[in-house]
């Protein structure tokens, strides 16, 4: 296990994992979409508009999960000075930001037919919007600092301060009055004895796993890029670069 903590070995391991994870992601998406768009019946109140749930809910869950990963990795990098943790945090930010945007946009498109409005400044929507700005702030801050160590440290501190937004998002539908519906799943116990029908629950769970594996696939691709950039002065990266040049026919 420890041997994969070195950037060189991690780069190779990630390269082997990515095709497998990508294939699993694709299969899960196909199966989840088949169940969600084709098999599942319309909702008795919302008709077919509720099908937006199958992307909105996984995107919203992942927006929070990726943030916790980012802040957690930032903390590990801050305390133990582990480069790979810093790279995980940096690589997670654009993915998390895009999934947060996806949650906001799909939620808005679900809100219009269901609530009659695209947007309302309630606690759930506002705290999710704040999450988007936290991701953007993290990326802007890291981009503004050239030194990789200082950049990682500054980003980690920002991510850790922003982590208070996560419980606020989660409990916002409980603590404040809102148009947003309360959680249908919410805890593991609800998956065992859910408040929604299995024909609707199963596509939701499969799409959630698909988003989950998707994140790990993309974050590994991004981390490989980060590793090459930050380890560029090491011998093994030089070797990769040189073999690539020879493959392209460039004269050494």
């Amino acid at each position, binding site marked *: 296990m420890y041997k994969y903590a070195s950037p060189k070995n991690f780069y190779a391991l990630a390269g082997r994992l990515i095709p497998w994870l990508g294939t699993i992601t694709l299969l899960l998406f196909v199966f989840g979409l088949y169940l969600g768009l084709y098999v599942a019946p319309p909702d008795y109140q919302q008709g077919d508009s509720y099908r*937006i749930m199958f992307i909105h809910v996984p995107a919203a869950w992942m927006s929070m999960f990726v943030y916790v990963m980012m802040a957690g990795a930032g903390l590990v990098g801050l305390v133990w000075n582990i480069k790979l943790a810093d790279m995980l945090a940096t690589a997670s930010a654009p993915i998390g930001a*895009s999934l947060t945007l996806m949650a906001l946009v799909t939620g808005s498109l679900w809100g219009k*037919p269901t609530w009659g409005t695209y947007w309302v400044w309630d606690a759930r929507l506002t705290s999710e919007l704040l999450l988007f700005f936290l991701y953007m702030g993290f990326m802007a801050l890291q981009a503004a600092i050239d030194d990789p160590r200082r950049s990682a440290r500054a980003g980690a501190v920002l991510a850790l301060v922003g982590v208070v937004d996560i419980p606020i998002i989660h409990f916002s539908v409980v603590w404040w009055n809102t148009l947003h519906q309360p959680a249908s799943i919410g805890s593991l116990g609800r998956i065992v004895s859910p408040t929604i029908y299995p024909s609707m629950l199963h596509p939701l769970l499969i799409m959630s796993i698909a988003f989950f594996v998707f994140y790990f696939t993309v974050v590994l*691709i991004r981390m490989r*890029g980060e590793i090459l950039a930050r380890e560029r002065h090491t011998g093994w990266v*030089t070797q990769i*670069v040189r073999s690539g040049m020879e493959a392209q026919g460039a004269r050494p």
Partner: protein
Amino acid sequence: MTWNSWHAFFAMGGYADYVWGAYGFATLVLFWNVVSAVRKRKAVLKMLRELALADQAPKETGAQRYVSE
């Protein structure tokens, strides 16, 4: 099954714009993630290759030394 025809499927019970709009946007975001991640790594490799070529050039200029630092 749920749908009587392809037409009914695409109509989404009258919610076509919202449902397909949401699914379309989600597809765009997923594709952007994959493409930008792959491009990022390729861009780093390309930059490193150019730096390596610059290092091999007969005379190294101050600017190149600055870039490779």
